[in-house]
């Protein structure tokens, strides 16, 4: 809330937010947050949840929660009724803001006060803001974010005000944005990047432009119309945007100065094509987790350009890295016993710093005794501190006692000119325990046989890493935030095997 107050005092009449035809200045956003906070406090609720696409209810709700001194909980609007109900039960008594269609169903749940997005924003926009006064408790919970729960029931990651403030102060210069700067927010609000984008933009003084439902055409159209200068996308979004741009020679994004990406592994061919198609745009790769208040490591624009222009293998390989840790964040690769590993050695990525929470509701803080957070991501670091992420440790394939990282094989497969996309998983195998299997999406340009692809991998890695089973598929299953749903690929490949 302090961030918004500072921005309001510095540029109160500047437009803070645009959504469709509606716009809100910093002063209006500030007043709306105060007015909504009064409403939520009067309802006697202990959490404010928003179940909505990227709409003005998200920033208003985020700042209203801080003003009222209660946690903000953005929930995934794509969940089924039953899934939503079980999450809401864990956060009651709660004030829920949602789209009109859902109001009636959610109103039946005990200990909830439900408002439609429209009613919530009308009240916030027309009500009177109370005098500025909010709890300034760094240890209070600012945000609860439910993880996607790929390995069990969803966990609620806890981010406190001190974590978010530390992230913002460490990564954003106050008021650094120019009058005409605008950022396009297309990641959903229940993703940590969606929340981080709001906080960073407000603190920098950069206008937020919201895109409720992503499609490459809508994204490009909005970026052009709103003269967007900055944006963050997940890899699947960038792939579609590049495809769309390549399909039309006279389509350009002249105002787009900076494009950041993260939230999943970026296939090398996609980023290389993006760099060539958008030479005037600076690219930044950001790696982070919900539990670390978003970004902990970045690969900056200069490194992107150097990698594309250079013949030096080390510089080229950097394009596959997530760069170096932010100031104030430490990253270390550790082995299974918790011992730090040297350059190039593969292990588990650990992160430490003031923005790192590592806490889950009902489970407490999971940090090690010396403050390290175990990310469950496998990776390595080179001698100059560039971090390479292999993928989730839980996805590692154990074949005859040998640990095989799917990411390594996927990288090699993607280098084959016929392969547009691929996923490598482990499937049960009588002899080896697990066998390496690959789902492959072929590009339009040329076909390839399973045998050809197997030889391709075998020549570049070793035979134990060569997929024993290869299935061709029209497309791979991704979540709407660009995460590959490996369990679905696994089920598909296992099903075909039996």
């Amino acid at each position, binding site marked *: 809330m*302090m961030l918004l*107050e*500072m921005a309001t*005092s*510095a540029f109160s009449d500047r437009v803070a937010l645009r959504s469709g035809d509606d716009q809100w200045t910093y002063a209006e956003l500030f007043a709306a947050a105060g007015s909504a906070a009064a409403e939520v406090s009067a309802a006697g609720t202990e959490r404010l949840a928003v179940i909505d696409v990227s709409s003005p209810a998200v920033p208003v709700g985020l700042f209203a929660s801080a003003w009222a001194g209660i946690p903000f909980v953005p929930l995934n609007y794509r969940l089924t009724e039953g899934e939503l109900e079980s999450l809401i039960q864990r956060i009651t008594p709660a004030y829920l803001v949602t789209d009109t269609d859902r109001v009636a169903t959610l109103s039946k749940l005990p200990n909830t006060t439900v408002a439609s997005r429209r009613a919530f924003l009308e009240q916030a926009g027309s009500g009177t803001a109370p005098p500025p006064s909010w709890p*300034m*408790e*760094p*240890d209070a919970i600012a945000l609860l974010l439910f993880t996607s729960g790929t390995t069990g029931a969803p966990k609620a990651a806890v981010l406190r*005000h*001190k974590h978010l*403030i530390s992230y913002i*102060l460490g*990564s*954003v*210069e*106050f*008021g*650094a944005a120019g009058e005409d700067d605008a*950022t396009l927010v297309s990641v959903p609000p229940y993703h940590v*990047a969606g929340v*981080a*984008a709001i906080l*960073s933009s407000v*603190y*920098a003084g950069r206008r937020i432009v919201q895109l409720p439902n992503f499609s490459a055409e809508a994204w490009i159209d909005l970026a052009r119309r709103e003269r967007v200068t*900055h944006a*963050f996308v997940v890899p699947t979004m960038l792939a579609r945007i590049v495809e769309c741009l390549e399909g039309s020679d006279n389509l350009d994004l002249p105002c787009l100065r*900076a494009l*950041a990406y*993260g939230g999943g592994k970026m296939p090398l061919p996609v980023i290389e094509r993006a760099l060539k198609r958008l030479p005037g745009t*600076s690219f*930044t790769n*950001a790696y982070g987790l919900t539990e670390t208040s*978003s*970004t902990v490591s*970045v690969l*900056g*624009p200069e490194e992107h350009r150097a990698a594309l222009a250079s013949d030096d293998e080390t510089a080229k390989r950097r394009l596959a890295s997530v760069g170096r840790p*932010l*100031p104030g964040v430490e990253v270390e690769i550790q082995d299974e016993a918790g011992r730090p590993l040297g350059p190039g050695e593969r292990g588990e990525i650990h992160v430490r710093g003031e923005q790192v929470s590592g806490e889950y509701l009902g489970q407490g803080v999971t940090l090690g005794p010396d403050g390290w957070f175990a990310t469950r991501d496998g990776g390595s670091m080179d001698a100059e501190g560039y971090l390479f992420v292999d993928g989730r440790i839980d996805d590692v394939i154990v074949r005859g006692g040998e640990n095989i990282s799917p990411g390594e094989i996927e990288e090699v497969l993607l280098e084959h000119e016929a392969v547009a996309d691929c996923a490598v998983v482990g499937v049960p195998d009588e002899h080896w325990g697990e066998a390496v299997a690959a789902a492959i999406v072929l590009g339009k340009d040329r076909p390839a046989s399973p045998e050809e692809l197997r030889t391709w991998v075998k020549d570049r890695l070793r035979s134990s890493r060569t997929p024993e089973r290869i299935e061709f598929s029209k497309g791979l299953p991704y979540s709407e935030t660009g995460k590959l749903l490996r369990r679905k690929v696994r089920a598909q490949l296992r099903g075909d095997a039996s």
Partner: protein
Amino acid sequence: MDPRKPGTRLRSAVCDTEVMVIAAPAVAIELRCGGAPMIDIAESPPPGASCHPDAKGGTALGKRYVDEAGDLELLCTKPGEGSLTIAKTPLTVKGAKPLPSSD
């Protein structure tokens, strides 16, 4: 006023400056703004007080101020005409290395 807890908000007794404590040393310090000891955000400044002529460098919104040792860090949340000092030693603006926007 002993600003040892991060998150504590303080105001100047003699100008409009307000700060939030980001990091603080373990020992008590004499934090001043405009030459006068800073007071809690909830307190009212004494009427008619003004900045000492030697401490009128001013504070800037959004800048972070640190001591020489780097133990103390304050974020200016409201600017004013006084300058921040520990006793008579001025705090300096923390130079931030510009980072590419990552979200």
